[in-house]
């Protein structure tokens, strides 16, 4: 039972962390909270299936074998985010942060309605990798294979991202830009390259979240990005806006708290799990309004 709980907490927290990173990466370099991130996730989900208004989805891209499907959908997510940046956020680059934020809301609504037009409003059943539901015996616990894969994938992604930020040229430029964009540009760092890079990474992470959501729930719903976007946004705030380690830690903590509440709340209180969860968030923010890992870059730039 308790081992089971550890796996639940790690897999849920891992997904929240990946989603929160998608928001924190863009906030870090642009000081933009991208509220369209949830719709990036939804778009990546619907990219798996062919446009139809029926309740049962026909796999399009999703019918590919996993070795092709995973890079394809990650590439789709990255491409969508880069395109969105070029079309929507680049023209607003010199606008106020509020205008940028409103722009991201508008983009989110536009994407959601595009999905409604193409696919209709009814949730659809998708059967992606049904074999992954098989339980695996680990000690006393029965853990779905999918959960193990999710935990492994999250660890791999976090490691690769940390390595990329620490070791690569683009990573160095992104970290410098996150601290002082103007200074980085004075040193020849190309603003467009850094911002496109951040959006590409963010979109790729959105696609990963999409794959996991579909594999877990077996449903494609136009509204499915909203819920996880909310949790991810809260994680970035609790973690300290712009802090990548903070986003990961807070995402993990939210997932763990959610799994723990689910397991230990009395039956009568369980439907109100999220209320307890967000009460915890309020408590944390009362004591640390700047977030757990407040970063220097969260200060407004002049």
């Amino acid at each position: 039972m308790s081992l089971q709980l550890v796996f639940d907490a790690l897999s849920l927290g891992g997904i929240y962390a990946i989603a929160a990173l998608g928001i924190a990466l863009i906030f870090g370099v642009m000081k933009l909270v991208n509220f369209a991130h949830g719709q990036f996730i939804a778009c990546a989900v619907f990219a798996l299936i062919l446009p139809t208004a029926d309740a049962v989805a026909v796999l399009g891209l999703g019918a590919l074998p996993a070795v092709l499907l995973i890079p394809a959908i990650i590439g789709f997510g990255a491409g969508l985010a880069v395109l969105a940046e070029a079309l929507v956020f680049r023209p607003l680059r010199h606008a106020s942060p509020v205008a940028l934020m409103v722009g991201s809301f508008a983009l989110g609504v536009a994407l959601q309605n595009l999905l409604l037009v193409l696919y209709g409003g009814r949730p659809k059943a998708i059967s992606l990798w049904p074999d992954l539901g098989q339980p695996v015996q680990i000690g006393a616990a029965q853990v779905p294979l999918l959960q193990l894969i999710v935990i492994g994938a999250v660890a791999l992604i976090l490691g690769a991202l940390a390595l990329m930020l620490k070791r690569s040229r683009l990573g160095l430029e992104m970290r410098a830009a996150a601290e002082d964009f103007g200074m980085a540009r004075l040193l020849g760092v190309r603003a467009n390259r850094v911002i496109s890079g951040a959006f590409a990474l963010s979109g790729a992470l959105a696609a990963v979240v999409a794959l996991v959501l579909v594999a877990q729930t077996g449903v494609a719903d136009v509204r499915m990005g909203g819920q996880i976007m909310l949790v991810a946004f809260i994680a970035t705030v609790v973690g300290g806006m712009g802090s990548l380690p903070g986003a990961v830690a807070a995402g993990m903590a939210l997932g763990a708290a959610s799994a723990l509440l689910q397991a230990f709340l009395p039956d009568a209180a369980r439907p109100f799990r999220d209320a307890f969860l967000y009460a915890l968030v309020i408590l944390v923010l009362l004591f640390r309004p700047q977030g757990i890992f407040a970063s220097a870059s969260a200060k407004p730039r002049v």
Partner: protein
Amino acid sequence: MMAKLGVHDLSVRYGKLTAISDLSFTVAEGERLFISGPNGAGKSSLLGAISGAVRAAHGRIEMDGDILSGLSPEGIARRGLSMVPEGRRIFRGLTVQENLLVGTGLRRDRAAVGDDLETVYQAFPILRERAHANAGALSGGQQQMLAISRALMTNPKLMLVDEPSLGLAPKVVDEVYDHLCALQALRGLTLVIVEQSSARAARVGGRMILMRGGRIVADGDAATFAADDLLSEAYFGDPA
């Protein structure tokens, strides 16, 4: 001979406030130019306009005869201009070495980056010692050395330095200028330095432009300024 830097009829405005009006001057290759004047004279706005960080209302800025106006800051940096900004603006969360490497992405001679890093470390052994420590942990003087070294790592032809003495002890300021002058001689750099203290500029030596109210009120050898009435005129006199 073509000037290294040419500023022609430059004006900078912030809303209705005019920071610089119709300013013109040229800087020769290898020259050391001090820009002095009271607070609000427009010195930092001038450096901002040259580096592309501040948009000019009108006028033309040229480097080696190429027009810089309208280029992005990174585009200007890529043409060989580097900036040591006011307040140093080092990346505090990056290591010392990472700070030095941020500006090397624009270089075509990647192979020479290692040699340049070695040169910096020889000039400032403390930076080598702290290479993998967070830059935010350096003292003010060390941060100034880091900011200068970071600007040099882009392999610039023209370097703008904004108030290098700000917030530093006089003895440290001596050191900073010793290094700047040595580096200039070594590299054949053209230097434009904003320096509030005209006495300091006179001591280091070079040409000096005195600004006031967004205009140039005097231009000449820094050494002759120290005794000059123009100086007190610029700081305390009636607005021109």
